[in-house]
Structure formats: C-alpha cells, structure tokens
C-alpha cells in the first residue's frame, strides 16, 4: 500500500498539471466586462488538486495516513486474479457491444460470469442468458424508446424478429 500511495499521489499530481495546462487553452484570468475566463475555474481547481497531492506526499513521508503505514501489497494474488477475471470480463463485455450488440454482449457476459465464474448450472445459466437480454430489449426499445447499439449488420435479422413483435 505504501508504494501505491506515493505512486498514486504522483499520478494525481501529473494529472493536476495536465489539467492546469489543458485549462490554459482558454483564458484563466479575469476579463473585464466578461468575468472570469472560461479556463479559470478548472485551472484553479486543478491547482488546488496539485497542492493536495503535495500534502498527501508529506503525510506519506510522515507515515500519518493508514495506507502510508501499510506494508501490504496494493494487489495480492487473489486481487490480481479477480481483477483479470472480473475486470477482464467487463472489458470484453463492453468491447463486444459494437460487434454483437448490447443485448448479445450482455448474453455472452452472463454466460461467462454465471457459468465460468459463478459455477452455476447450465439450466440457470441458459435461462438467465436468454431471458434477461430479451427482457431488457423490450423494456428499453418498446417501453422506454431508448435504442441500444445493435452491433454489426449480421445481427439485423434477429432484431427484425423482435421489432416485428413491438410494431
């Protein structure tokens, strides 16, 4: 944790500097007759962030915050495995949306999580994998009129069947 604390403070400091620099694309001072420039608000806020990272670093040196006292690793073996399996699954889910549609990606993610991570039975897995995306489809597309991404054109015939039910 101790190492993670100072690295994170460093990353936050760099982010603050980047935000300050980015804010200067607009005026960061006071413009007579117009008030504070468009960049002033984020510039000074990022400045305060930078000062805060300095205090976090001081607390790290003085070992006054709990993470700066902890010698445990930020991520242990279980944490790394969990991050890869759960975080990777989520990453895959979102990456698949533009290919096999939101509903298709939802089904694949449910299959992966329920069967391979949750070790649930095939029957429960298949029931949820099919019913939930279809349920979501009718809720969003028919009731709420919110259109979700449909992926590449090969998914079209499938969605035509569902749209025929709505209209």
């Amino acid at each position, binding site marked *: 944790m101790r190492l993670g604390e100072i690295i994170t403070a460093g990353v936050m400091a760099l982010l603050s500097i980047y935000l300050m620099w980015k804010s200067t694309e607009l005026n960061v001072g006071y413009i007579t007759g117009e008030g504070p420039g468009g960049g002033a608000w984020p510039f000074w806020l990022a400045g305060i962030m930078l000062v805060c990272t300095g205090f976090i670093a001081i607390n790290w040196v003085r070992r006054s915050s709990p993470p700066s006292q902890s010698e445990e690793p930020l991520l242990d073996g279980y944490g790394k495995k969990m991050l890869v399996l759960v975080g990777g699954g*989520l990453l895959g889910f979102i990456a698949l949306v533009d290919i096999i549609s939101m509903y298709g990606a939802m089904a694949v993610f449910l299959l992966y999580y329920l069967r391979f991570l949750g070790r649930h039975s095939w029957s429960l897995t298949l029931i949820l994998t099919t019913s939930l995306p279809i349920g979501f489809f009718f809720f969003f597309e028919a009731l709420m009129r919110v259109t979700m991404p449909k992926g590449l054109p090969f998914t079209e015939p499938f969605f035509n069947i569902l749209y025929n039910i709505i209209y």
Partner: protein
Amino acid sequence: MEILGLLTDGIFVSLQPINIMLILVGVTLGLFIGAMPGLGSVNGVAILLPITFLVPPGSAIIFLAAIYYGAMYGGAISSITLGIPGASTAVATTFDGRPLALKGRASLALVTAAVASFIGGSVANVLFTIFAPLLAKVALIFGPPEIFALMLLAFATFVGLGGDDLPKTILSICLGLVFAAVGFDEISGAPRLVFFDISGFLHGINFLVLAIGVYGIGEMIWTIESTRGEITTTEAKMSVKGIVSDAKEGMRRGWKGTAIGSFLGFFVGILPAAGATPGSLMSYGVSKMISKNPKEFGQGHPGGVAAPEAANNSASTGAMLPMLTLGIPGSPTTAILLGGMVIWGLTPGPRLFTDQPEFVWGLIGSFYISNVFALIVNLSFIPLFIWMLRMPFTVLAPLIFILSVVGGYAATQDMHDVWLMLIFGFGAYFLRKLDYPLAPAVLAIVLGPIAEPTLRQSLLLSSGDATIFLTRPIAGPITVIAIILILLPAFKMLKDRMKGPKSNPAG
C-alpha cells in the same frame, strides 16, 4: 380557511375514479423508472407526455406528477439494493443505503427511505399549500451569489466533517468539479478540456458516468476482492412485523435527517435551477454535520438514508412551486411539465391560481393522494426488492454490472461514456483501496454545473470583487458558515498539536 376549502375541493377532484387510476399507474410506473439506473423522472414524464393528450388537462398533469413522485421514491431502490444511484436525486442515498444493505439491513434502509420520503412529501405539501405565493417571491431573491454560497456550504459540509483524510477529500471534490467543467464553456461557447481531442468529451461528462463507475463498478470490484468472493446479503428478510419495526427504528435514528431533509429539501427545491439533487446532497451533509456521531455516516446510518430521501421528495414538490406560480421550472422534469401545460392551453404564472383554480387545486390535492399511494406501492414492492438481494452474489454481481453498462449508455446513448465509466470504475477501485473518499467527487460533479456559472455570474456582477459573497444579506451568513466548516479541520489539527506536547512529552 379559504385555503382549506380549496384544498378539500382539490382532493375531491383527485379522488375521481379516473384520477385515482392515473395516480396508481403513475406512481407504479415512476417507481420502476426511477429505480432503473440511467432513467429518471424526466425520462418517464417526457416519454409518457403524449399519452396524456387522451385525458383532460387536469388528469394529465396529475398523472405526470404521480410519475414524478413515484420516481423520487424509486431512485432509492437501486441505490440501496444494487449500490447504483437510480437518478442524481438518489446519489446521496447510496452513501448509507448500500452499506446498510451489505450488513443485511436492506429492509431497514428501504423502509426508512419510504417513510422519510412520505414525511418529506407531506411536509412539502403542507408548505406548498400554505406558502406557495409568498415562497415564490422569496426564491426570486436568490441570485447567483446566494446560490453559489449554498453550493459552497454543500462542499464545506463534506470537507469539514468528513473525518477522512483532508487533502484526499479536497482533491476528490476538485476532481469532480473539474470533470463537471469538461465539454463547452457555457459563457463563451468554446470547447473546454476536450482531452486528446476525443469528440465524446464535447458533450461533457454526465454525472451518472462517474457515479455508476464509482459505485456500480469500482465499489463492486472492491467488494468482491475485499470479501474474497464470499459476500452474501441473504440475511435480508422481510415481514409485515419487520416493516413496522424497521419504520420505528428508521425514524428513531433518522428523525433529524428526515426533518432536515423535509424543510431544507423544500427550500432548495423551489430555487430556480437548483432542484432535488442539490437539496438531497445538502440535507445529507447537514444531517452529518449536526449528528452526534458523524463518523457513522457512510458506514450505514439510517439518518444518511432518511435525509436525502425526505429531501428529494420534498424538493420535487418544491420545484413545482415556481413552475405554477411564476412559470419558472425548478428542475428538468418540471420544465417538461411546464411544456405540457402550455400544450394543454394553460398559462403558468400568478394568474393560474385565479383563472384555473380547479386545475391548480386538483393538482395540489393530487400531491397529497399521490404521496399516500406512493408510500403504499413502495412498501408493497419492498419484498420483491429484498428477494433480489437474496439471490446468490454470483448472480447479483453480473446483474449489477449489466445494469451499470446499460444505465451508463442510456443516460447519453454514447459508447464513449461506457468506456469512460469503465475507466472511472477501475480508477475508483484503486483509489478506494488507498482510502480516497469518492462520494465528494460524485457530489461535486452533480453540483459543479450549478456552482461554476453562479460563481462567474457573481464575479461579473461585482466586477471581480469576491467580497460579494460576504456582503450580501443572505449570501454573507451562508458563506461565513461554509468558511468556518472548511477551516474546522485545520482548527482541530491545531488544537491537537497544542495538546500533543503536553500529553506526550517524550515526543
């Protein structure tokens, strides 16, 4: 007495069979729309507006107001059961609602939310009935400096009383405010903070993207890791007896929050451009501030659920006030309601009370009836929400992730935001591990779009003189309280240091 007579007439209007039916359907629909992340009362009201052309204007607005009411109740459901705020008005409910659910006390959180919402709504209805025209005038006195002072107070309650690491809390607030500034500069119209020229940043960062990233993804990954995947909330139980005892416990421990939320929420709700979200966040902050045990807030305190829930219901009624009396909407939902009224041939404003008394008092009467129905419908559905929590965590977790992704997309309908939400989720997971408080960042991204324009308008009014926040009769005291709260941790630190050498002479 005249008001009482008019109100009685109004209640009879809303008790007509068609109106009763519309109220029942409206609050039920609103409850589920409000509970769905990414969808709020504004979506429900906007989508169902065309349906109302089939019924008389009085019934139509009663139906839409019932949806609005139901959604305010519903927002708490996903905040508590899933840890994802259903709407911005329920962000603060997540802070204590989710920890209560994780402790197996979801029923306490849900019942507290329902009862506090009912009380908040009832207090607001009474205030609305008695003081409507007078309060509308008071709200107009609030200019940019006063509203900015209120925002400052909201941030100050988080800084001064957090008990968390102070530099991390301030950093979290500033980060949220900077994220709220992404997109276009509202005054000059120039693009601002468009990182790496990615066009998705041009429409700004929706608060839900950060809120769902933090609570739906980051918090979930953290929970799975910290409990080694053994997490379960199957202790959650529900019975009629349980509802009564939960209601008693919720009110015993959350009465202060309910009272603060009911009054503060109503007042913030009537301010133009404020609405229920700042009302609920401020009520949470003030409840924490006056609590004897502020450190229990954020760990699962019923007062932390009662305050924002009472406030958002109270504010939703309050937001109707400037709409009806002045024709100024106090929130996006009331803006759509206002549009509906114009379409139905009604002219909102001071003359509405004299020209269309049956319409106005019918609507006010429906607030009372909707509030009762919303409580009954909400309590009836609590067993269903509890049942959801009794699902194995390996079923609930992918459901929460799916709702997060779908909710993140539904809010802006842009995949850029879904990717951003994932990045925020991973970032929040690491920051959470390092004890960075993330609730202040969510608070800041919600209030940022109000805080920045009011600050700039105020400084423009005063030609750059910042003392405008101290010299105005309403803004001054609020600013002074906010400054004291911000400086409170520094005073505490100084006090501890002065005590330190005496109590520990060795060093």
